[in-house]
């Protein structure tokens, strides 16, 4: 059976991550620390607030954190910088020699790597959640959260490629990873559920794509079986893939590589 190049890139990504257990252990170890910190914070906060904050109890908030942080930690934090470096140095020209889409091939590989991290993070999170507060608040929410987690990782990766494509035009674009990360933190709902933001800010967050990367799977995991959120994610994923492909197509036409 012949493998398509994209499927080969995806499975190679899985193998590559599995072949670097120390790096994976550091990432998942950090995820464990985050869980300890946020579980402590939200336990103290809900206790100080009579047990509920904007409709979330401690149990809901802990499962929210597990899903939100697990989905974000699955992707490389500095992917935008890495892509920017490849564009800036001209290394990306080597990828352009292959008879496949540069961005499609790279995203397939990144998705393979991210899936391994996602599975490890959510497995650890599940154990942490079960021991700390018991099962997720609703089975239906859990069932919806699992595909949403995969879509969240897909949206995150494609959005990072769209951001990184700016490096074809702007020299310092690779620094944008830092700002992107902060947008995910706040407008993506990674640090706080959108319900805890002021109304106007939550409204802006819902108009932008960042909430598909953390809030959507987290909201579902916290017991709110809002299936329409999956459709919103899918819609954004299509838009983001189209944007990344278009940005790279335009960028590749103006790429000038000096030396070799």
């Amino acid at each position, binding site marked *: 059976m012949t493998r398509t190049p994209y499927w080969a890139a995806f499975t190679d990504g899985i193998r590559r991550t599995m072949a670097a257990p120390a790096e994976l252990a550091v990432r998942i170890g950090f995820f464990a620390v985050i869980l300890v910190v946020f579980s402590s914070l939200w336990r103290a906060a809900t206790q100080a607030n009579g047990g509920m904050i904007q409709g979330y109890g401690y149990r809901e908030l802990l499962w929210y954190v597990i899903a939100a942080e697990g989905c974000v930690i699955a992707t490389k934090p500095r992917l935008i910088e890495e892509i920017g470096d490849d564009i800036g140095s001209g290394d990306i020209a080597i990828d352009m020699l292959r008879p496949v889409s540069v961005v499609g091939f790279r995203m397939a590989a990144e998705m393979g790597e991210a899936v391994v991290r996602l599975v490890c993070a959510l497995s650890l999170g599940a154990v942490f959640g079960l021991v700390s507060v018991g099962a997720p608040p609703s089975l239906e929410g859990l069932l919806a959260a699992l595909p949403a987690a995969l879509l969240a990782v897909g949206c995150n990766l494609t959005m990072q490629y769209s951001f990184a494509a700016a490096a074809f035009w702007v020299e310092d674009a690779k620094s944008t990873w830092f700002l992107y990360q902060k947008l995910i933190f706040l407008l993506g709902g990674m*640090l706080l559920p959108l319900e805890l933001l002021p109304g106007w800010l939550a409204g802006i967050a819902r108009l932008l794509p960042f909430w598909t990367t953390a809030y959507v799977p987290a909201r579902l995991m916290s017991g709110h079986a809002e299936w329409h959120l999956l459709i919103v994610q899918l819609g954004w994923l299509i838009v983001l893939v189209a944007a990344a492909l278009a940005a790279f197509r335009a960028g590749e036409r103006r790429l000038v590589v000096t030396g070799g």
Partner: protein
Amino acid sequence: MRIILSTFKNSLIEAWTNRRSFWLQVSIMLANDLVWVLFWILFFERVSTVRGWDRSRVLLLFAILTTVAGISLGLLANARKIGQLSAGGELDAALALPVHPLAFLLVRRVDTGLLGDLFFGPILFVLAGEPTLERTAIFIFGSLCGAAVLVGFLVAIGALTLFIGGTGEQADLGFQTILILASYPVDIFGGATKLLLFTAVPAAFISGLPTRLVDDWQWTTAAALLTAALLFASLGVALFNLGLHRYSSGARWTRA
């Protein structure tokens, strides 16, 4: 001492040479810090106090933490890279000099972006820390002690690479862990985690205790903080010195 000061001066000049890049990186770090301030403001809009911590106290903690980070990770940027440099066999250049290699390594590199923290911390203290002469003096004392603890801890876990091998993964994890634990009020943690913050991962000495001192000066707390600073600084130097006996050159003459 003169060599160390000259090296440090050169590192600062090097960071300052590309002005555009300097201000861009500093601005990005300031924006990053502002997002955290915004997070805490939004958090305390919904939750008035958490175990004795309110918005102004957490902002004071954040001012101290960013100042500590500016010193330890901005001015002494190699503190967090000892593990990588050791694993890569990149200490050769430092070993050939007539100064202590650790002192040279620490001042050899300045991280421009993290200098943004060094601007942000004191500004936040002035704006939200209710500065008086006494509180400012304690803020400086606490930040310096916190920086000594952080640098000592980072050097110690980096130097472990010389004993256990690898490429410094434990140093990366330790770095990320101590920073995130130091970013939150120490009193939200309980039991074993709190014990950890005062021992193996000394995050409490980086931000929690200095914040307590600024709000409520106690000689015993100050003595504990100073002792921790001396202990962790000594631990870092001792582990690095011991580890050097096991160092293998990578035959790479780098700038370290």
